[in-house]
């Protein structure tokens, strides 16, 4: 099986360190998501794994073999690019078969594998077309087909869904995940979309400024964000961070906050009805607090209400470093009047 190990990898261009001492591992046949805002180094990390860029320092191994110095073709990987990188003058079939032709796979074998991949991705009717005659979703499928026909144990994906519309994106998300599990591929998937990461990943590597901010399973990164950055990046709307003094910042997710008669006195600023629930934005002093309330809430701007939450839903962060603090007792917060069930 092919697990991927990235050990103390850095990539510098002059004085800028795009990737700064990054380490993580992807278990075999798992889906690992590199998540972060644009410019955080996630795509560069992927390109380092692919061998399209050379590491400045550190070690990368795939399936136990050190591949740090190997060219891309010898790393036994496939890759899907954000722009799909389809060859515009070749038909869908020729695009998918490109790699097999390079490696001089016999014609019978090529035909067999093409038929299988085309059936798997629903491309049978499109094989004779050129990429320019396909929709964005179909082009995406062709790019996927070109990656999986290689039957490599590792597949790298660089923001593969960012050019698709919202509905298609949700569909492809499920499809890619199913495919990955069915074929038992080890997949590294780059995205800036936290909902994509949460819904697909076995493990999420959250990156910021070239460093790993947090590496954990999606449920853990949601339940126990390691830093304020992680807390704010995961979840929509992001976690409320309130400064109540004392060097500790208090975090509470909008879905854990309830509006009622007891708790922090806040003033409603706006409310946004989303169908299943309503996101109410309130002002607490000069700080902002959002609450996700089920159904259609009948609050209007200017209403005075109280915001409350249960002690176990509170997160504490160090005000100076932004790092999570588990040594703060939630009951102490209750005592000073910050928690209301």
């Amino acid at each position, binding site marked *: 099986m092919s697990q991927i190990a990235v050990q103390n990898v850095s990539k510098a261009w002059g004085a800028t360190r795009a990737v700064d001492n990054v380490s993580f591992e992807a278990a075999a046949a798992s889906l690992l998501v590199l998540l972060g805002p644009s410019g955080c180094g996630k795509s560069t990390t992927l390109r380092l794994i692919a061998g399209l860029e050379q590491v400045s320092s550190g070690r990368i191994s795939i399936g136990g073999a050190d591949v740090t110095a190997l060219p891309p073709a010898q790393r036994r990987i496939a890759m899907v690019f954000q722009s799909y*990188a389809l*060859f515009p*003058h070749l038909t869908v079939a020729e695009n998918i078969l*490109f790699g097999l032709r*390079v490696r001089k796979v016999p014609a019978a074998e090529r035909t067999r594998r093409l038929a299988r991949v085309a059936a798997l991705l629903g491309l049978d009717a499109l094989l004779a077309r050129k990429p320019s005659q396909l929709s964005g979703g179909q082009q995406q499928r062709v790019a996927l087909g070109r990656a999986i026909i290689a039957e490599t144990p590792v597949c790298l994906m660089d923001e593969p869904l960012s050019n698709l519309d919202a509905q298609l994106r949700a569909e492809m998300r499920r499809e890619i995940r199913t495919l990955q599990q069915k074929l038992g591929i080890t997949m590294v998937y780059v995205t800036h979309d936290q909902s994509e990461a949460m819904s697909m990943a076995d493990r999420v590597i959250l990156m910021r400024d070239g460093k790993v901010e947090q590496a954990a399973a999606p449920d853990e990164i949601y339940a126990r964000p390691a830093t304020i950055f992680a807390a704010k990046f995961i979840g929509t709307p992001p976690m409320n961070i309130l400064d109540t003094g004392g060097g500790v910042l208090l975090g509470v997710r909008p879905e854990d906050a309830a509006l009622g008669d007891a708790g922090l006195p806040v003033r409603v600023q706006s409310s946004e009805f989303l169908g299943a629930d309503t996101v109410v934005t309130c002002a607490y002093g000069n700080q902002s607090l959002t609450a996700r309330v089920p159904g259609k809430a009948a609050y209007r701007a200017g209403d005075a209400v109280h915001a409350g939450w249960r002690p176990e839903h509170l997160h504490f962060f160090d005000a100076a470093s932004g790092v999570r603090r588990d040594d703060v007792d939630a009951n102490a917060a209750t005592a000073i009047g910050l928690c209301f069930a």
Partner: protein
Amino acid sequence: MHGPETKLATAVVPPPRWRVSPQIHGWLLLLPASVLLATFTHFPAVATIIDSFYSTPKGRRAAVLVGADNYQAMLADPVFWRAVSNNIVYAASVIPLTMALALAMALWVNGRIPGRPFLRLSFFTPTVLPMIAVANIWLFFYAPGYGLLDQMLGALGVPTPNWLGDQHTALICLIAVAVWKDAGFFMIFYLAALQQVSPQLAEAAAIEGASRWYFFRRVTFPLLMPTTLFVLINAIINSFRLIDHVVVMTQGGPDNATALLLFYIYEAGFKFWDTAYAATLTVVLLALLAFFALGQFVVLDRRIHYQ
């Protein structure tokens, strides 16, 4: 006619005093271009074809219809055949050499290499120079005895021919000048086309293990085909059209070894003042060029992928 809407409309857009039908409007728009084309392209071309069936008017004797006499004389003219064969050899060497060199230079300066802007500039410089100046510079390179070539080869002890004075080398010398002059110009088109090719295509191919040559053959070159066609047409036209260097360097000599078709037309028309014969030769040149253009657009166009 007297409704409120009509009044409003007339208040905003005053009715035109005179109306022009769309057909006349269209023809008026075409008029300037058609006048220029007819005066300077179509009329001279037709007049040339007509002239080729008449004798050359001389003094008090007007031109008389001579039928195909001019063409018969041409077919029997050994200098004409020499010019045709020279032009074929010239075109068949200059066109592929120029294009191959242009593509090679474009691929080179498209890569990440030190001094790239300087290289691009130096490749392009010959294009900026007038052909007359280029021919004069090369005249010095080829000069027997003290020329650059002779000095370099002489220092190595290699015996050198009289480059432009020898029937066997003169045409080759002109070919070298033409390739040197045009390759940089065509390189610009290839370079522009290469920069349209997404670098991710090369990365995708690299991951599949394609060698650079394989990628060039299967991807880059096919994607450059529209440019290649454009460059090919221009190279063909240039190989029949550009004869400044013949005038400056050899005057068609020695013994017509460097007489190209257009140079022979120029000699016939403006040196020997045999305008009817010059018209006849021009018709042949026109027919040749029309044949090439037709072939390119009809045959090649269908096989080319346009983005």
